């Protein structure tokens, strides 16, 4: 039986994870494209910065985000002047999810884009296609399986995000509590059965995401 508080936590987690994924996909696709197809000054630095959250402790990444978005930092101060509050709000939850899932998406998308035979793109150009048309009608559809896989991975990572979130967003009931934070909280308080209820919901969501991903890939392969 799912309780009202559980439903609210699940809905909040899904909503923030979806917003995060919607931010990660276009930005990650652009980064993967630039990293995979072109040589440019500063490429190694950008590549390292994007992948850094994969190897750093998530809590450390959360501390960096906290520093960046705090009102005393130039960036946080600028946002504050525009009336945008980040730290300890749902926006901080999304920010942590974005930073932690971006490297996974970029890696998957980069591999998928690099696997597209450039011959198809060259031929499309000789047929009069503009660069945006080449990208959207040739490259993207041919890389779609890998990109879809990366999207599911990014969404799943966002759902499970914990370390960076707890530092930059805290664990404020009704405001910033995600499933991962709630599970931790309940275990700490000795409410194991309530924790396991959320664990089961997490497992169902993860299973559904992976199953949909596999089903879509199978349908595309069968065409």
């Amino acid at each position: 039986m799912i309780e009202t508080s559980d439903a609210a936590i699940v809905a909040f987690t899904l909503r923030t994870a979806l917003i995060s994924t919607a931010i990660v996909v276009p930005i990650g696709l652009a980064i993967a494209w630039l990293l995979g197809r072109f040589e440019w000054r500063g490429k190694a630095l950008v590549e390292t910065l994007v992948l850094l959250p994969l190897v750093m402790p998530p809590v450390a990444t959360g501390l960096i985000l906290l520093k960046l978005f705090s009102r005393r930092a130039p960036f946080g101060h600028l946002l504050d002047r525009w009336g945008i509050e980040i730290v300890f709000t749902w926006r901080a939850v999304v920010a942590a999810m974005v930073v932690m899932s971006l490297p996974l998406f970029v890696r998957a998308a980069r591999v998928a884009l690099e696997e597209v035979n450039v011959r198809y793109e060259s031929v499309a150009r000789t047929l009069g296609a503009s660069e945006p048309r080449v990208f959207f009608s040739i490259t993207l559809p041919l890389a779609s399986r890998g990109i879809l896989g990366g999207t599911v991975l990014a969404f799943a990572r966002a759902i499970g995000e914990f370390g960076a979130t707890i530092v930059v967003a805290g664990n404020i009931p009704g405001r910033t509590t995600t499933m991962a934070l709630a599970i931790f909280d309940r275990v700490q308080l000795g409410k194991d059965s309530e924790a396991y209820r959320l664990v089961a919901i997490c497992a169902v969501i993860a299973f559904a995401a992976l199953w949909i991903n596999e089903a879509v890939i199978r349908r595309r392969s069968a065409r």
Partner: protein
Amino acid sequence: MILSLRRVRLPLAHFELEMSFEAQAGATGIFGPSGSGKTTVLELIAGIRRPTAGQIFIDRSVVDDVVGRVHVRSRDRQVGYVPQGESLFPHMTVERNIRFGVRGDDAELFVQRVVEVLEIAPLLPRGVSALSGGEAKRVALARALVTSPRLLLLDEPLSGLDRPLHSRVIEFLIRVRDDLRVPMIYVTHDPAELRQIVFDVIAVDRGNVVGHGPVTEVLP
């Protein structure tokens, strides 16, 4: 004169390509051993690669001039390019492949003509993976032709096909040459193919032109 390369240079892995030649309307062959720079020449003409020196003219208009800093993009060259190996977009049907480069309703009659000449009407609804090697070559040829190119570039169009299919594809290429009157540059390492379809041959080796003239004089 449909094509002119003037002191075109491009460094490659084992040698520097440096070529000058002119090709008249009709069918011209580029002949040479594997790795002699034949495909690179086609890619330079198609605008896929940029030369480091020299000029390229198509139909008397400049498309590359390194000193003059001219490089016309592939999409604006009006050149049909049929590369070696698979080039049909695998996620599209034959019809979507063929119509990819068609712009405007005026081209419809020409599309119908190309489909008729190359006998591909029954293939239109099929997926690319359902085509045989010979059918795929014809579709790739049709896709390049429907854009009304000023010049057709064919890179080893018979490679990967069984011997019995060679004469069939050659027959279609002769139709393109004579019925549709599209000038073509035909690249191959096989002199037997060239004897059947081209008038002039440019022999290349290690990135240089080593012979140029009528097919009977240049080919071994």
